[in-house]
């Protein structure tokens, strides 16, 4: 199973097993990782599942769709070039070792 690491704003981090096919948002909730609110339950409507992806791994993720693009302009913490919505990112074997930084604020 691919391993994914979530890094909190204070620097603490957790590495968890990510089930292929679940979204990176669901994986965080499955493991009780704080810092992802996911109010809309993964429907690209709330922007409260915002994460920053390690830049060198951006290409391993699928492209932004128009919903995600629009929603990323609504994040509570500033949007960066590496910003993604974790609910729109399905886990694949290729993502093993992925590191995601969590923003200061989600709401």
């Amino acid at each position, binding site marked *: 199973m691919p391993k994914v690491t979530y890094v909190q704003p204070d620097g603490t981090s957790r590495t968890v097993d990510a089930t292929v096919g679940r979204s990176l948002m669901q994986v965080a*909730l499955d493991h009780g990782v704080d810092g992802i*609110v*996911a*109010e*809309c*339950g*993964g*429907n690209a*409507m*709330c*922007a*409260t599942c915002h994460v920053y992806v390690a830049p060198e791994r951006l290409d391993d993720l699928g492209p932004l769709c*128009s*919903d995600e693009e*629009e*929603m990323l*302009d*609504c994040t509570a913490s500033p949007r960066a070039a590496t910003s993604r919505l974790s609910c729109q990112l399905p886990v694949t074997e290729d993502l093993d070792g992925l590191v995601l930084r969590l923003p200061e604020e989600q*709401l």
Partner: protein
Amino acid sequence: MITLDDDPFADAVLADPVPLHRRLRDAGPVVRLVRYDVWAMARADEVTRALTDPETFCSSAGVGLSDFRKETPWRPPSLLLEADAPEHDRARRTVTSVLTPKVVKTYRDTFAREAEKLVATLVERGEFDAVADFAEAFPLKVFPDAVGLPAEGREHLLPYGAMVFNGFGPRNHLFTEAMERGAVAREWIAEHCRAENLAPGGLGARIHEAASEFSEEERALLVRSFLSAGVDTTVHALGNAVLCFASYPDQWAALREKPERSRAAFEEVVRFTSPVQTFFRTTTRDVEIGGERIPAGDKVLLFLAAANRDPRRWPDADTFDITRRAAGHVGFGSGVHACVGQMFARLEGEVLLAALARRVTTIELAGEPRPQLSNTLRGLASLPVRVR
């Protein structure tokens, strides 16, 4: 085939749907409701699966019992709710662009101020009807203001909503009565979906601007979705919230301790009471679920409320607990048809419950709550309370 003879639209069931929901979930993943010749799903997994597979479980044949391919709907179908891809995507993109979390945030201060004002008046009174004076009063003020409706005529919004939501069920007495009561509202609603009757800068006007690729008639239909979907649902959620807190004083104490929990508390109210109880879908192909083959063209009744209390998904599902992580419930639907106004509803719930929690120590019933029966919604007609 598992069959049940129950009538989910019978008065007694609508007044207290929880026992039926339990029976449906326990009966199996897919159940045949013989009375209406429809399929039903009530477990969280299957309901979510159907909601997130719009190619198999379509909406354009209507999301009520009536099949638009065989019967003419009582009003022109909604471009959002009663549509499939690709038409649906176009309409949805337009509306979401006007209802983004960023736009919703711009209403926060105004809504919070209105919430403070309303709560102050009610605390002063001490005793009031938490439906008319609280749950209806707040959305009926802030929402039409935000949409840009004039002050006169707003009394048509609730009877109109009652027609819409009863219209998803069978042609029973609730439907007939709602249609009679709402007859005059229809014209007012139609009039006020037109650009010339909407205040500049409001959400309604912004829909007309954002929907420039649509015809004038279609633009009005998009605004109509706001007026149909944005009022009764929130009203019921707020009324249900007060009943929850009057019934679970420990949860009220928990909220009072930290009024900033009000957003999570509102989420739990939506999970626990599911103001929108059910929606139908129609199969576009033969599909096998839980060992049952559902043929193409059949209506499937999805029990959102039952899914939100499925013990397979929620620990202590029947416990109202504002500290739980309620995200992932289907009270706002899920998938491409998930409620586009959900961030607005959350804002309304959050600011109003926070205002109440900051001012009110105890909420007690001052009379029997009376349910408001509806073929789709679960809420109250009246809820006399005393606050201190």
